[in-house]
């Protein structure tokens, strides 16, 4: 009798799950406690406990404002965005069976980029990024993905390859329009466009968190429920069909969910690169190729990673901030290289 329930990778899975959970707790603590104005972690802990009716908060009004109205929404946006980008990346990699797939593959980045550029360039007199930028970015991303699906994914004969190629074409077209708009923009507007394109959580508020969270929760739910189907699809679409999987339905559900969640995140945080690629790959190297492991662990590690990266972005050059996309790549790439070099051959 085979010991089907006790594979040797289970111990490693437990260790990795524990490690990413600890990373998440550390990230939450760091995200609330660390900043240009130091606030002791024990006071933040006391304030958290006071919400449960135990003891009372020792934060003064200024500290309370900083923690609950500035750092906390930014932390939650980081958790939501990081988990969504990592899960979307893992799901895209599964559905396209392409390790280079990322959440921006089907035109989300190009569509959101064009929408945001349109919003910023058309309000050249304002010194700030216009309030309706997220909505245009969100709409642009959804229209881009819908166009990609309409061109390359709706036919019965369509494959992941046709969908990918349609994504390339749509992205190229929208990027060219965006480039044209940037060329016409003032230097001030152009700088704001670049700030948006490189991603940032600086604009986080409870309002923006409240708007994107429902989309992200639905998307995460669909991606988590599709993980087992993605495992079956790793043997190829036809063989997955012969194993009873409705491949076209799964592909549609995962692409729609991952794109919707990513569009929502991008509308609030701009184009944060690298998270959707590095997190699933790093996990794949340590826990194996099963999406039932990679997708849920990506949710936790993606959230922790983005919050830690954002903490670096807003503290190392305080009071100014580094672009978040730059930090995710600067931190993520070396870690990824180390994991890759330590990987043992199976």
């Amino acid at each position, binding site marked *: 009798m085979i010991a*089907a329930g006790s594979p040797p990778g289970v111990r490693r899975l437990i260790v990795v799950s524990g490690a990413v959970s600890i990373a998440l707790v550390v990230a939450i603590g760091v995200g609330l406690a660390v900043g240009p104005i130091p606030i002791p972690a024990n006071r933040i802990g006391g304030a958290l406990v006071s919400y449960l009716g135990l003891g009372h908060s020792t934060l003064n009004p200024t500290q309370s404002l900083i923690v609950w109205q500035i750092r906390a929404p930014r932390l939650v946006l980081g958790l939501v965005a990081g988990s969504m980008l990592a899960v979307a990346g893992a799901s895209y990699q599964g559905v396209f069976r392409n390790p280079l797939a990322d959440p921006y593959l089907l035109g989300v980045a190009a569509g959101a980029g064009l929408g945001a550029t349109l919003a910023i360039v058309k309000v050249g007199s304002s010194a700030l990024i216009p309030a309706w930028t997220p909505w245009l970015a969100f709409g642009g991303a959804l229209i881009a993905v819908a166009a990609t699906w309409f061109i390359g994914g709706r036919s019965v004969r369509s494959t992941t390859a046709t969908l990918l190629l349609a994504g390339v074409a749509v992205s190229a077209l929208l990027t060219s329009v965006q480039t044209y708009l940037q060329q016409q923009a003032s230097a001030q507007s152009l700088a704001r466009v670049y700030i948006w394109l490189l991603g940032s959580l600086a604009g986080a508020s409870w309002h923006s968190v409240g708007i994107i969270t429902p989309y992200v929760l639905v998307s995460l739910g669909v991606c988590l429920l599709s993980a087992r189907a993605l495992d079956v699809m790793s043997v190829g679409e036809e063989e997955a069909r012969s194993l009873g999987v409705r491949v076209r339905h799964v592909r549609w559900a995962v692409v729609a969910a991952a794109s919707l969640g990513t569009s929502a995140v991008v509308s609030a945080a701009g184009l944060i690169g690298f998270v959707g690629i590095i997190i699933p790959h790093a996990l794949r190297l340590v826990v194996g190729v099963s999406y039932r492991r990679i997708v849920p662990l990506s949710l936790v590690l993606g959230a922790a990673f983005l919050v830690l990266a954002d903490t670096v972005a807003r503290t190392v050059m305080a009071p100014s901030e580094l672009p978040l996309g730059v930090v995710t790549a600067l931190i993520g790439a070396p870690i990824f290289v180390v994991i890759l070099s330590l990987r043992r051959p199976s």
Partner: protein
Amino acid sequence: MIRLENVTVRAGHRVLVDDVSLRVEPGSWCTIIGANGAGKTTLVRAVSGLTRPDQGRISIQGRDVHTLSERERARGIAFVPQHPEIPSGMRVLDYVSLGRVPHHGVMRAPRVLDHQVVADVIERVDLGAFVHRDVVSLSGGERQRMVLARALAQGTSVVVLDEPITGLDVRHQLSILELLQREVLECGLTVLATLHDLTLAGQFADRLILLHEGRVLADGDSSCVIRSPALAQSYGIEVAVVNVEGVDVVVPRVGVSYREPRGNPGKV
């Protein structure tokens, strides 16, 4: 029972399978032979539900294959393609366990019964020593046994195989075919396979179907089909059939040009 009624499959204007009707009895082994491009793969794909026929009906146990849902079909027919995709990084146990997906579904975890079936199949195909190995680390013969194990784990009454012994050495070819034969004899499995090796096809199948340009050229008992003049016509070469210790060995005749017979070879 597998039943095909006037099945025609086209690709554009090209007819790949042309008005084929046949029945495969439960617990029997039927092998489709024929030259490259004869329509063998298209026919078995149609039976497996992967290719929809342009005309005709294919049923298994009286139910139309193409009106069943994917999951219902996967609980009735297992398909082994000619070139199965082997996903790097997956363990043999996990790969074989995919065969239980039609039973527990993609939204639920495998149950105790599923684990038991997988363990039983792995023992039957003698892969017990490899369960925790990466699938890509297996040899060609071991991989094919693993793919067969996945198909058997589906627990279907019908297994359809497209060239299951391509690229294997003689020992591993025999090992795969003997394994299938055991499943037919001991478990009552119905096998529909395509094979290129005519001698092995004759040795293992209860019945051979010779396909030529999408049509059934000969259909019947293995020794009759192998000795039929239609065989030479289908392949376009002269062959000799030599009986060695009760086994019909098909030998292609080198340097002898194929000559069209005077009459129509007709059906066997």
